[in-house]
């Protein structure tokens, strides 16, 4: 099943073009990794998928991005509803300066998803459980989220993202600020989450892409050079640039 279909996406920062003609299909309930050297546009592409580029004044996006066959770049698209359906986890853990509970209940509150305190408690608990954080924090839900370790903070951000039961989760280098143990925990978590969510992850680590993803897209200088199943990209890429990047000859 194709969940997201990008067609001829161009992105401009002012006059500078950052992405050229990107067309990419993303499979439902699978992990798609976007790899490529720094500045190649993979994060920019990721931010197109929940229209986070709207936040940047000078950024403009052209082309069609269909999610469930609906073009999110259309004027009729409600960004609030879109972002409810498409969660995002950032490179640096960014818990709000609030308690753990308030962090996780933030999304459900602004989208009016819980009718009672009890319902909210349940949402918080299941989200934290899914993010494999519940056991560690269940006794201190009302302490600040910023007091956790880096890895815990990132899992808190994942719990926050899944609290509104999004269909898609975008992850922008979620492990780049974490140590190997925390990274392993997050990767395990990603594997678990793909049962219910479609996941797109931007990563600098080729090993990580190989470990967690089923599909991989390789970006270079704002172009999508090659995409396909992770197995094929890593073992038998069509393009020599992909081959060079994966074997570490550049980038």
């Amino acid at each position, binding site marked *: 099943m194709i969940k997201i279909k990008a067609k001829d996406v161009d992105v401009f920062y002012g006059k500078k073009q950052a992405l050229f003609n990107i067309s990419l299909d993303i499979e439902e309930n699978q992990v798609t990794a976007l790899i490529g050297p720094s500045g190649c546009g993979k994060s920019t592409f990721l931010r197109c998928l929940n229209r986070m580029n709207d*936040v940047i004044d000078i950024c403009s996006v052209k082309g069609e991005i269909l999610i469930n066959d609906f073009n999110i770049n259309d004027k009729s698209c409600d960004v609030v509803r879109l972002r*409810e359906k498409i969660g995002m986890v950032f490179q640096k853990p960014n818990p709000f*300066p609030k308690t753990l509970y308030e962090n996780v209940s*933030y999304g459900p509150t*602004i989208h009016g998803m819980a009718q009672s305190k009890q319902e909210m408690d349940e949402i918080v608990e299941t989200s934290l459980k899914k993010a494999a954080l519940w056991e560690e924090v269940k006794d201190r839900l009302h302490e600040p989220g910023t007091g956790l370790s880096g890895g815990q903070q990132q899992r808190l951000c994942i719990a926050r993202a899944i609290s509104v039961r999004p269909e898609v989760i975008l992850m922008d280098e979620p492990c780049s600020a974490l140590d190997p143990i925390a990274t392993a925990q997050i990767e395990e978590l990603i594997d678990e989450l793909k049962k219910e969510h479609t996941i797109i992850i931007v990563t600098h680590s080729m090993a990580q892409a190989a470990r967690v993803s089923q599909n991989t897209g390789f970006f270079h200088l704002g172009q999508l050079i090659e995409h396909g199943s992770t197995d094929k990209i890593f073992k038998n890429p069509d393009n020599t640039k992909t081959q060079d990047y994966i074997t570490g000859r550049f980038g």
Partner: protein
Amino acid sequence: MNLILFTFIVLLGFTSYYFGRKKAYTIQSTKKRLTALPQFYGYYLSIWCAIPAFIIFSLWAIFEPTIVKLLILSDYSNQGYLDDELNLIYEKTKALSRGQFTGEITPFIEASAEKYLSLRSIAQSSKVVIVLSAIIASVAYAYKRISSNSRTREPVEKFLNAVLFTASLAAILTTVGIVFSLIFQTIDFFKVIPLFDFVFGTHWYPAKAFVRDSSEALDPTMYSDTFGAVPIFAGTFFIAFIAMCVAIPIGLMSGIYLAEYASYKVRQYAKPLIEILAGIPTVVYGFFAALTVGPFLKELGTSMGLEVSAESALAAGGVMGIMIIPFISSLSDDVITSVPQSLRDGSYAMGATKSETIKRVIFPAALPGIVGSILLGVSRAIGETMIVVMASGLAANLTLNPLESTSTITAQIVVILIGDQAFGDPKTQAAFALGMSLFLVTLCLNIVALRVVKKYREKYE
């Protein structure tokens, strides 16, 4: 003379820097490795020049007058003069030597004045000689001592540390000095006026104290019901409250607009424009309040059938609020802008709108800073003098009606201290008592503010 000497010493300092560095370069050219960069050798020599100069100058400043006085007055010893008379003779001598003496000139004093002048010139020239020779000796000693492995970096760093420490010490000592001068005058004041009457009295009428002829004996009973500070404290807080009612909402909202909503271009022009408000002298605000806002409110009130005083608390407080807007607006703008973009992204990515993000994420994160800016505004409101003096009258009415005139602590201090005042009199000491209580109030306010800010910091960081 001192100025020329000082300039010369500064020049010597630069020269020793040059020589120190030059010697370092010479050492370097012999392929020896230096323990510090060549500049440090220069600084090191400059310090050796500055320290003896500073020590000798301060010693001179402390001891020269005393020694000269002793020498002059030694002529008059054993003649049975009292200490006070000796002091008078010395003052006359000094005045005559400056050519400012107008009384009868006795030969004794004339002789002393001549001696005084010659002593001064000896002191002056010996100072020049001693300072210069001390500098040259110490610089020469240090110059000889420096070699490739002499430690120059540590002394230079220590010297800088000491200079910076002295600077902060000066600021602290000044504060302590001011507080002490307040304390002693305040204690004197409370010897005459009971503390209870001051703190709980409801009549503030210092004019009553002005009618006393200072030659009359001091009779504490005549001051009962004169220095009751309740009305002016109430007036101070009342006017500050009105000011904050104007300043907090407008300042905060414009700060949020500038930080979150305004486009780059709007912000570029709007922010300096708002900050211009902060540059207007308070006197200008004062006559704006007294001549424009006050009469306008009076007319408006009359047309609605209300009794409005031309000098009302509302006019003073309102204009004061306008004066405080730029502080709150500009500071909260800075605080909100410094909230990390990652928090905004996190909130937007959850599907929050701009206003939700501001209300639920940015505002709480910026709260310590915003509270800080508000409290800064409050202490400005409490300390503001000119607007109140000009626009709210000087009669200390105990009232909560914003349309009547009322007065504040600072305005009353002005009233009390304007013109010639006798020191050691309760009416002038009242100003010190008021200043002391104002100081205590703002101190408490600052302590509370720091506590609040710290508590929020702990919660959110």
